[in-house]
């Protein structure tokens, strides 16, 4: 008799969502988290009285949460209260005196754009008119549907024919779509950077990511107390339903017999048996380290080995002794799509950390979480996080050696483009390099968005939520369908739980 019906490896939002739904379906469920903190990338840590978000800084597409809690028969508001964040982004380049913020309201955003680019203001409204129905179709259907193979895709198209309208967006690029609508360089920069959420520059990212710039106008949210509020809420729901979460339990191996998952083995040799195992960490780690080559057919090994990881996002955590002169939760430097594309080939692929002029990277996103929740910092102080882009492998060099210089250069970049004199107000500083993210969160290559998201790594070409080679093994998290990002992995968790409960009915 196995110890549990379901054992979930990893206490991130995807694993917790799948666990809660399995528990709700009457299966005895255990979540094993290797660290002492819930949430993985969607989490918050405390240092010197400051509370910093580890990775994710807001959530959008809250339909995932609503769907999860609807299926759990619980109140989302009770478990995960959310505060609306408005404006969505403030774009800033003080060297050119350019600054504009996009509010949530689409018409208001068009008005903001019209002030400096009248044609693009009109184009934004057309962009919204053209893509809003596609967004609804995709979020309501594609997001929560399994994409195990051609049969699932055909089934999906038959059930929701409107989804076919979104098909061309998978075949073209993010850059082509935004260039079709917008001409102004600053507007283009504001609509193109979202490709990096897929870990790719705009000319290599599937066009479907162009809708992210519009999705954000459906509303972005922040939970009180930091991003950890989201996984904590799902954990609480799981525990209220009778499920269990254990911390400090690092899984090193998935027990496999005759191509069937039988449980897991922890780092101390403890074995926990289970009818079903859900690997809610990076799929490469699940298959290549925890399952092992000996249990996989050669073509599956070749498939997982060929999958590429998304671009890592180094995180810098700053505590400051004043209220920073910012206007929004998110402030972004403006970088043209062409510069982003060139960065990919000239720096990222070559493993170069610093560009010629000494800047650490081409773009940076500054999040000011204590604006919406002052309790995240001691009185009179504030927390800032800086998310950048950088290669994991440095050409002939090591991240640990460059950590301090990287922080200095990133602060200098923020001073140059967004907050003058920032360095004079920093009272706490730390950083998670791609290597640190790999060590802390077990993301191979520090790739917090999991497997790269281009057409060749999407839907049925992404690691399946139900393993096709190991019976009773399921997967969840950013490297599975539908992809990375907090709400997306929650949707993935829902899909995984649907497959587990269907197979165990």
């Amino acid at each position, binding site marked *: 008799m196995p110890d549990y019906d379901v054992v979930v490896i990893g206490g991130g939002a995807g694993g917790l969502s799948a666990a809660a739904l399995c528990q709700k379906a009457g299966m005895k469920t255990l979540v094993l988290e290797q660290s002492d903190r819930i949430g993985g990338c969607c989490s918050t840590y405390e240092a010197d009285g400051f509370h910093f978000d580890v990775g994710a800084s807001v959530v959008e597409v809250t339909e995932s949460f609503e769907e999860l809690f609807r299926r759990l028969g619980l109140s989302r508001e009770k478990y995960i209260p959310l505060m609306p964040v408005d404006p969505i982004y403030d774009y800033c380049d003080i060297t050119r005196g350019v600054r504009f913020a996009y509010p949530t309201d689409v018409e208001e955003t068009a008005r903001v754009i019209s002030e400096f680019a009248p044609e693009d203001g009109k184009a934004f409204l057309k962009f919204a008119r053209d893509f809003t129905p596609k967004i609804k179709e995709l979020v309501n259907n594609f997001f929560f549907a399994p994409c195990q*193979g051609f049969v699932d895709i055909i089934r999906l198209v038959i059930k929701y024919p409107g989804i076919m309208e979104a098909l061309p967006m998978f075949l073209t690029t993010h850059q082509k779509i935004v260039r079709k609508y917008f001409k102004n360089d600053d507007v283009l920069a504001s609509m193109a950077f979202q490709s990096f959420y897929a870990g790719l520059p705009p000319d290599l990212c599937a066009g479907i990511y162009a809708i992210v710039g519009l999705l954000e106008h459906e509303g972005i949210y922040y939970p009180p107390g930091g991003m950890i509020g989201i996984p904590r809420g799902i954990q609480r729901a799981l525990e209220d339903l009778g499920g269990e979460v254990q911390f400090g339990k690092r899984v090193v191996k998935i027990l496999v017999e005759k191509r069937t998952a039988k449980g897991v083995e922890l780092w101390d040799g403890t074995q926990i048996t289970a009818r079903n195992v859900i690997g809610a960490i990076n799929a490469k780690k699940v298959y290549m380290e925890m399952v092992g080559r000996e249990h996989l057919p050669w073509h599956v090994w070749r498939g997982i080995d*060929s999958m590429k990881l998304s671009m890592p996002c180094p995180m810098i955590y700053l505590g400051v002794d004043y209220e920073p002169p910012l206007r929004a939760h998110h402030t972004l430097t403006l970088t043209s799509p062409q510069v982003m594309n060139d960065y990919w080939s000239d720096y990222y692929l070559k493993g170069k950390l610093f560009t010629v002029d000494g800047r650490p990277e081409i773009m940076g996103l500054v999040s000011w979480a204590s604006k919406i929740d002052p309790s995240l910092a001691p009185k009179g102080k504030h927390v800032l996080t800086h998310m950048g882009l950088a290669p994991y492998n440095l050409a002939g060099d090591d991240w640990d050696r460059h950590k301090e210089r990287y922080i200095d250069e990133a602060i200098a970049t923020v001073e140059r483009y967004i907050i003058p004199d920032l360095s004079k107000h920093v009272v706490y500083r730390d950083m998670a390099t791609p290597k640190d993210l790999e060590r802390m969160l077990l993301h191979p290559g520090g790739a917090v968005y999991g497997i790269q998201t281009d057409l060749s790594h999407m839907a049925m070409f992404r690691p399946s939520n139900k393993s096709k080679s190991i019976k009773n093994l399921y997967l969840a998290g950013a490297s599975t369908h539908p992809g990375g990002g907090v709400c997306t992995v929650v949707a993935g968790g829902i899909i995984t739980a649907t497959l587990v409960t269907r197979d165990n009915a």
Partner: protein
Amino acid sequence: MKRLMMLLLLLGAAAGALAAVTEPSDWRYPKMLLIELPKMPFRYFV
């Protein structure tokens, strides 16, 4: 042989014209997909 040369010339001219009106970075997506194409049948089974 003559026909083959003509075909190659025509294809070359078409490719040249297309390259002239297309930004270099526009080629990267199809090129990337072309490189990834042989790997996709294997990924399907993961």
